[in-house]
Structures are given as C-alpha cells and as structure tokens.
C-alpha cells in the first residue's frame, strides 16, 4: 500500500518530504524507544511513535523505513522537519494514539510481522 492512500484513509497530516509519498509500505512498527527501532524494525516499515526529537529521522534513514507517523497529536520540532526534508523521510501526524492507529492500519491490511 502506498503512503498516499494511508494519508487519505487515515486522515494523516504530512509534515515533510511530500515528494516521497508514492513509496509503498511493507509493514508496521510501533515503538518509542530509538534503540528498539534500530534493532528490530524492517526496511519499508511505517514507524509509529510519540518521539518528536530529530534523532527519529536518523533512525528512519538508517533503517530505510517508509515513513514516520507521530501520534497523539504531537508535532515534529522544526529541526526534525528540516532534517527530514534533507534525508527525504516522510513525517506524518495523527490525532490518534498508537494503539488505535496501529489498529486501523491493521484493519487496512498492514501487518507487524512477516
């Protein structure tokens, strides 16, 4: 499924790298611990997190994740947006908490394990 479809279906706000919304996601990963994401997320995952610190961009870039969704209405810091534009990482935002967003993505066929 493409990021553009998710943005539309789940009413996500897009905060960076609008040009990369055509990318397809292959799975979902939810975590607020950067070390955990570094260790266990897979290439092409959509990452759900509460963290807004600019380090999330570095982690997403290193693991080649499809994009990041910030939950609970949290907005990225300016520095995070700038970094994401440079690294071409899509950052989206949702009002939903992690549990509900993961639930809806699951309902759209996104899985958290192979």
């Amino acid at each position, binding site marked *: 499924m493409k990021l553009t479809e998710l943005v539309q279906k789940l009413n996500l706000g897009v905060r960076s790298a609008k040009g990369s919304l055509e990318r397809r996601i292959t799975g979902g990963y939810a975590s607020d611990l*950067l070390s955990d994401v570094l260790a266990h997320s897979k290439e092409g995952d959509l990452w759900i997190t509460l963290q807004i610190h600019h380090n999330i961009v570095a982690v997403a870039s290193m693991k080649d994740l499809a994009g990041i969704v910030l939950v609970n209405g949290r907005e990225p810091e300016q520095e995070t947006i700038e970094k994401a534009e440079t690294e071409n990482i899509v950052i989206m935002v949702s009002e939903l908490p992690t549990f509900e967003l993961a639930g809806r993505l699951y309902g759209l066929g996104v899985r958290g394990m192979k």
Partner: protein
Amino acid sequence: MAPDSKISKIQELIYEISVGQVMKKNVVTVGPQTPMSQLRAILLEKRISGTPVVEEDKLVGIISLEDFIRWLADREHDCPISEKMSGNVRTLYADEPLTQAVNKFERFGFGRFPVIDRKNNKLLGIVTKGDIIEGLLKKLEIDYHQEEDVYRHRVTHFFEDILADKVVLLFQYDVVGHDFKRAGEGASRLKATLRRLGLDPQVIRRVAIATYEAEMNVIIYADGGKIRVRVEPMEIFIKVEDSGPGIPDVEKVLQPGYSTAPEWVRELGFGAGMGLNNILKCASKMDLRSVVGKGTQLYIRVSIEDGAKSETD
C-alpha cells in the same frame, strides 16, 4: 530525622494500622445465661471492669462493674446477665483504621470497644485507648529505635490533637536521588494512605500521578528531596522540594516536549518533557519556583471538587 517528620509518621500510622492489629485477643467473656451473682468473681479474678456478653461467638451485649454495682444496690434477686447488660453495643470492626477508633472513643466516651469481624459479626477482641497508644508506640519502635521518650510524648499529644474541630493531616516522604529503581515509593505510600482515608478514587489518582511525576523529576535531576503533603477536607497540597541544580528558565521547562533529560532516562520511558504538563493536568493549581544552584520547589494543589479532572481533559 526532624521532629515534624515524626509527627507526620504518627499521623500516617493511625490511618495505616487497623484496630485488629492493636486489640487484645483472648477476651474474657460471659454468656447471657450466667447469673449476676457470679459476675463479681469473674471481674475480680480477671481484674477487669467490664466484659462482653457472647452467645455462640456472637456479641449480644456488654456488662460492666457499674451494672453489677447497680444490681447490688437495688437488692434484686439473682437473674441472668442478659437482663442487666447493655444490648445494642457500639463496636469497631477489626479492619477499620485506628482513626475510626479514636473518633468513636471521643464521640461515645466509652473506655473500651468490642472488636468484631465485619463479615460474620464474631467477637475477635477488645480495644482500649491504652491499646491504641501501645500499638502506635510498638509500630514506631519498629521503624525508629532512638529517642523513645520523644515519641511517647508525641503519640499521647497527637491523641489529643486528633479530637480537634478541624483535622489537617501532614505526611512527609523522603526521596533518594538517582535511585531509579525505588522511584515512586513516596507516591505509592501516599496513594495507599489516601485510599485508607476514603477519598474519591479519581482525586487519589490525580494526586498520585502528580506526586509520582514530581518525585521522578527529583530523582532524575537532583540528589534527593522531600515530598510534603497536607490533606484538608476539601483540598490536598503537595510540596516537592529538592536542593538540586535548579532550573535556569522556568518558562521553558513548562513547554510540552521540552526536556534536558539524558538519553538513559528517555530509554527508561521518562524525560520526554511531559512530566510538568502532566502535573498541571492533574492539579487544580501548580506553582514552580527555582533558584539556580540552590534548588527547586514545586507546589501542587488538588481540589477535591475538581473530581476526575485528569481523565476528562
């Protein structure tokens, strides 16, 4: 340990200790059919001035030396105790906190209360004012070994204080800095105590969350501090104080998401710059004062009228 923290310890104990823990078990009892003529020997032999009347484990009355003297003075014929005893006995439940006992002693002016099981009304023991003081002293001796005379004075003193028109309860908890494992012990003990006081669960939840976040801040940023809590009928005041490095820009730390927490704290699930906002959400009023190099004081007021504030925002 400062004198004021001893008082708060005692005040906390009268909510934490139950009547069952201080009562005397193995109570001498009489049956309702025991003749009055035998009562004197029982009271004399056991050196007691009154005794519960029990039938099949259930308390049916209480008979005192006074009742016996009255019977003697009236020169009546011998009769079963049941005819002279006071029925409708005021009792305490074994699981009630000592504060209930103290209130009842004051209200009814009795010298003793039979203690019964809440579930089946069986007589479990008997409690006097002396038992309460003794129980408090014992508990304090377990917790602190020094300066026993001071405690004796304070316990008896406090006993008088609790009978005032307005009761204000003070609790104090010490916070050890950088001890992440034990973080939250103060908030946990406070929560247990407030539960015993019978406060509304949502009010307790707000106080617990606000205190826990404040305690966590002391542990992360300072070498330790104190939590002081003042419970009044309609309001709870929490003051959390540390002698840590202080906060250079108080306005800034109140912004959601602003944090200077080190990475190890973030990996433990704290330090995301939400703590103070959380406290603000739970509080009716909050005030943060800090002097760089001297320390930080956080004042939190939770009004009982605000009820479930933190869950409805």
